[in-house]
């Protein structure tokens, strides 16, 4: 009996190990491809931009110079700081509101019938159309930026959470019932952990939404932040500064998405290894 178990254990370890090695190799190759992609894009951009009037476009070299200048005189840090605060506030609010909202809609059919349509409509709504109203409601400061980031993000998080609840395997809920678990225990110990991967997907999509939200807010209120820098640079024919701010925005979005991915691996390590077989 013991021999059988040890044998089974070895087999399992081998598959786990080879999978790990394979994914590491693939990870190394993927990074190389990504780096090559970045280099090719920079070269093409550089060559193309040099043939164009410097008022209309800037090559990466000029953007880099502008970026260093903006770091030197403190403009960039101020702008990032101004954007980051309402961004984080709005994003956190969206999580705090969106996750419970999605859980409720997914778990209770009454709630789904009552407000499910509203969440779908909210997700599809073009935020830009609501900007004037938001400015009337929230003024021109911190509050309007946070509110727009939140509105932009909350529906993506709610919809993904909702989806996740609906995809909880019925058999697992049955395990809870069979072992006499109470409803709150089933919700906390079975439904919620099953939904974590979907919530993380919502958070990842939410980052992109939130970036759009903060930029729209800063464009229209035109008060500081990275969005403000972009508008100012655009209006004063400084494409190098404009692109520098855009690059910073994109880099921040990529970094934040990566951070969410890390968090996901910490919170739901079982998920990657289940789905990992096909990737």
């Amino acid at each position, binding site marked *: *009996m*013991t021999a*059988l*178990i*040890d044998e*089974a*254990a070895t*087999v*399992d370890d081998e598959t*786990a190990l080879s999978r790990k090695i394979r994914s590491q190799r693939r990870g190394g190759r993927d990074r190389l491809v990504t780096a090559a992609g970045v280099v090719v894009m920079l070269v093409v951009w550089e060559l193309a931009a040099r043939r164009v009037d410097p008022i209309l476009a800037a090559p990466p070299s000029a953007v880099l110079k502008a970026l260093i200048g903006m770091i030197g005189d403190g403009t960039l840090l101020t702008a990032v700081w101004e954007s980051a605060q309402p961004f984080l506030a709005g994003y956190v609010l969206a999580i705090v509101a969106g996750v419970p909202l999605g859980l409720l809609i997914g778990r209770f059919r009454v709630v789904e019938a009552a407000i499910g349509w509203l969440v779908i409509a909210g997700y599809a709504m073009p935020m830009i159309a609501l900007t004037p109203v938001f400015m009337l409601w929230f003024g021109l400061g911190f509050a309007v930026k946070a509110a727009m980031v939140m509105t932009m993000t909350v529906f993506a998080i709610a919809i993904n959470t909702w989806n996740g609840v609906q995809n909880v*395997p019925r*058999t*697992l809920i*049955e*395990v809870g*019932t*069979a*072992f*006499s*678990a*109470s409803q709150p*225990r089933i919700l906390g*110990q*079975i439904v919620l*952990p099953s939904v*974590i991967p979907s919530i993380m997907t919502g958070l990842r999509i939410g980052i992109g939404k939130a970036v759009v939200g903060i930029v729209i807010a800063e464009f229209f209120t035109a008060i500081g932040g990275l969005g403000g820098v972009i508008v100012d640079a655009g209006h004063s024919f400084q494409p190098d500064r404009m692109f520098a701010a855009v690059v910073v925005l994109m880099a921040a979005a990529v970094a934040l998405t990566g951070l969410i991915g890390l968090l996901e691996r910490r919170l*739901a*390590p*079982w*998920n990657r*290894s*289940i789905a990992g077989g096909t990737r």
Partner: protein
Amino acid sequence: MSDDLAVDVRGVSKTFVDDKGREVQALRDVTFQVRRSEIVALTGRSGCGKTTLLRIIMGLEHPTSGTVKVEGEPVRGCGPDRGIVFQNAELLPWRTALANVEFGLEARGLPKAERRAAAERAIELVGLTNAAGRRPHELSGGMRQRVGIARALAIDPAVLLMDEPFSALDAQTREKMQAELLEIHERTGKTIVFVSHDIDESVLLADRVVTLVPDPGRVHAVLDTAFGRSTSLDERRDSAEFARRRHELLQLVHGREIRQQDGVSA
């Protein structure tokens, strides 16, 4: 006599309503008893309602009519007097093997130390102590099913219910698990009711086999298949009784099938 009964199923019928609103009778007037410490197999072709019957005993489904009693108590929903093992183990993927076994104990409000001790005993019983800290995706199919069995045994139920517990395993692992189930039965003396479509498995493991026939699911025959308590699986397989009972059971399931088809075409 009735003091001796672990499970008492009387006149159980079950009617489902399908997607189109039609009523489908899954079980009709099913009656059978299981004595304490007995191993009983429910077998039959697919669609004969054997899994539905097991789920009714578990309390996951309610019969349309009839009663089920476990240890003399009428079944009203699930309870800790019955432990169930699902076909595909159905472990919580985010929990370790040990924590999965603990799940059933948590609902009963036991102190943590006691819970842990009971789970460790159950894990040991199925021989998984070395893998207790692994998550389900790090376990083989056989090991996962062992955890499923340990989870059901940990709550110390009067009756262990198993729904095609070894059907998802490869042949070699299945044989090992069958032997281990007999070993566990010998050590714990639990009453076991299992569903299987595998005639050989039913004859080898069970003291009695209840055969069901479909459309609607009902009991066709109850066959006595008891071997001596400590007869090993190999001895059972090589015995003349095994061949005879196996043949008899095949006749019961297969013969009925032919008559059924005649009935349908007529």
